[in-house]
């Protein structure tokens, strides 16, 4: 028995029902494989995405050869965040660590909940109703959108929470989320990072069989 087949059986098994119903596991269910495997993979990707940054910005200036990099994870900001925050204070902009305090605290529990919901939708036998399963998969499906919306808000907040007493005065502005921007002597390049793409993949996998069922 190949490893792939073994994995397939394991995923398709029914831990709650097989003992009582005996032969139920042998009954063929063509959709079972995707119904189980896809949410399971989605949950894994979702949790994995917590370990890598969702968004990054690189700042270029002559005295920083190679640039300064901020890696925005859902739980913290990594890279040269401290240096960027130090520089921010000259123009009265909040430090990166000041943004999204609640979201950073709630990220792990929320994601665990979303992942648990995915698993429930896949395994809990009583949840046969399609709308209930859809409901359980929606959090994972909507997370990327939520993250982008939240990121946009906090970038707006950082760019518009300018301390008027700062040594260097600048007009409030909307930092560039994707692509090139410029602040003082810094050129910036911002883009999504691995975490966001994992979350998008997770969302697609979470919702995939609904689209398929609808097509079918």
């Amino acid at each position, binding site marked *: 028995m190949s490893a792939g087949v073994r994995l397939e059986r394991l995923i398709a098994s029914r831990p709650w029902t097989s003992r009582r119903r005996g032969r139920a596991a042998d009954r063929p269910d063509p959709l079972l494989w995707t119904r189980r495997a896809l949410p399971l993979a989605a949950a894994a990707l979702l949790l994995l995405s917590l370990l890598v940054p969702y968004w990054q910005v690189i700042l270029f200036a002559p005295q920083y050869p190679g640039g300064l990099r901020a890696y925005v994870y859902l739980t913290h900001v990594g890279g*040269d965040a*401290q*240096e960027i925050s*130090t520089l921010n204070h*000259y123009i009265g902009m909040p430090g990166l660590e000041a943004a999204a305090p609640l979201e950073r605290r709630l990220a792990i529990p929320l994601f665990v909940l979303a992942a648990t919901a995915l698993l429930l939708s896949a395994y809990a036998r009583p949840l046969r109703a399609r709308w209930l399963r859809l409901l359980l998969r929606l959090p994972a499906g909507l997370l990327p959108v939520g993250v982008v919306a939240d990121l946009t808000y906090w970038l707006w907040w950082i760019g518009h929470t300018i301390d008027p007493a700062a*040594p*260097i005065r600048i007009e409030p502005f909307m930092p560039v989320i994707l692509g090139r921007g410029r602040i003082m002597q810094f050129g910036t390049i911002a883009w999504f990072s691995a975490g966001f793409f994992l979350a998008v993949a997770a969302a697609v996998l979470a919702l995939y069989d609904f689209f398929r069922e609808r097509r079918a």
Partner: protein
Amino acid sequence: MKLRSWGGLAVAAVVILTLIVLATRGTTTGQSVPRELQELIQARGLTPDQARAALQTYVPPGKYDDYLMFSSGGQSGQVLVFGLPSMRLLRVIGVFTPEPWQGYGFSKESRAVLGEGEAPEDVLTWGDTHHPAISETNGDYDGQFLFINDKANARVAVIDLRDFATKQIVRNPNAASNHGTVVSPNTDYVLEATQYAAPFPFRYAPVASYNDSFRGLATFWKFDRARGRIDRSKSFQIELPPYWQDLADFGKLESDGWVFMNSFNTERATGGTLDKQPPIEIGASARDMDYLHIINWKKAAELVAAGKARTVNGIRVLSLADAVTNGVLYFAPQPKSPHGNDVAPRGDYIVVGGKLDPNVTIYSFKMIQDAIRAKAFAGKDPYGVPILAFDRVVAAQVKVGLGPLHTMFDDKGNGYTSIFLDSAVTKWSLGEPYHRGDAAWKVVDKVSVQYNIGHLSAVTGDTIKPGGKYLVALNKWSVDQFKNIGPLFPQNLQLIDISGEKMRLLSSTPVGLAEPHLAQIIPMDRVKAWTTYPAAGTNPLTMKVDPQAIKAGQARIERRGTTVEVWMTAMRSHFTPDRIRVKKGDTVILHITNIERAKDAIHGFAIDRYNVNLSLEPGKYETVTFRATKVGTFPFYCTEFCSALHLEMVGYLEVTP
């Protein structure tokens, strides 16, 4: 038919013409750069060799040198770090002298190093650095630590090459001066040889009692690599006759376990010119031979460990008598007031520069061992040390020029000896197994240097794996080499290409801050220096986060009786707190943490009129302690230009009456 062949001819002609045009264009583009350079070379009046030397040593902006050279800083009491081949000065390291840029000797931490725990009136504020020694693993530089001696005060310092800062200074309790600092092949010991004999145990004794009460010493400082410190309690000394022991080198590979050390003034001249005695320079040069000291240091260490030593002024000493009885110490004659004393890469030969003799004398380690076994002694010195017969231990002599001093080696089995009186470097070939037959023990080349060369240094040239490529001549006189800038002339360090058969002089570098003696050259990538201290709040003495270091937002001032303690952060572009109020007579303790993490975000910290200046590199924690004796309101400010608002990085210390 006819037309077609005409057409073919036309096509061929066009093709050929195009090729010709392309070819000439190609050559013109190919030649235009050299022609421009040709004009530049002519305009600057350079010879082709000089132009080649310029290209060989030029390092463009943003590119790095290939080698680091650690040079002693002579009377400055510092170490100088150069990049090669550019010969640009990269760093000065404060060692025996307070150095304000590094805050060395101003913070509590660096004052503890500089002060060696002595009473304030005994703290020395200069040193005469001579011989840097990079730590070694298996006989090759490992780039972790640097040791350097202070000839004037018999001290040895330990520099950590992670942050290029001095961590320890040990004072020799029984010696007045020293010369030569070398490390054993695995840096278990740092050897310090005395230069001028002193009363032993160290005390007052009249010079008239020289022969009886003066002694030389070989001091083996035990180095604890894990702690990065010399361990006094595990160190020992070997008592030697009162000759002037000079340079030393550890044996390696086949001669591992032995030390070779030259000496002069075996005449034991002590001057007395007003009493019509010959001056020391005459008295000390009377004999044709002095003594190469051959020391079995592993046996000495065993004897000391077995308790065959007495503790003198806090350090264990193996007596001269015990050293002789137990076969620890032998002499071999060496001509005449010798200077250099260098072990060949395989550990098989010891090369001694004659100084007042035009030869380098090469001793064979095998022959020395055979002679010791055969007891081939030519006599004993007045202190009972057996003297091996000269012809039983000498493998060869090579006539290299007038005033040979020090020797380093290349990767092709050649020695390079500095020739003081001739102002030259002589390249000569070693014998078997490096070179055989007619090729052995021959002068290969000689190049003039400007002028009066002392030490020389080749890339890893005193290790088991010499790198060849470059050699630096450290010249004592520059005379006419640089524009006159007053009667105190700079030293002249000259870079020489030794990669070919012939040596080629590449460049001259004036050193206008002291007289470097020895230097050592290590490939750049072997030194793994920090760009910032690894964690914010690192104490440079412990290299760990200090319990008193603080994070952003924890700054505070606390008063306990007459002591005011301040926990301060430095961060572009402010100190927190920026106002400190104390009363006259208070003891003020400032714990300052540079909480920056960006490289080169360095802050200074100076208090006006209070003789305080620190260098706070990113992540560094240091302490300042002083008594507020002067009433007034004093600015304290950042002395290292840190940012656009550097001038605003300031605060006030109020000392109320």
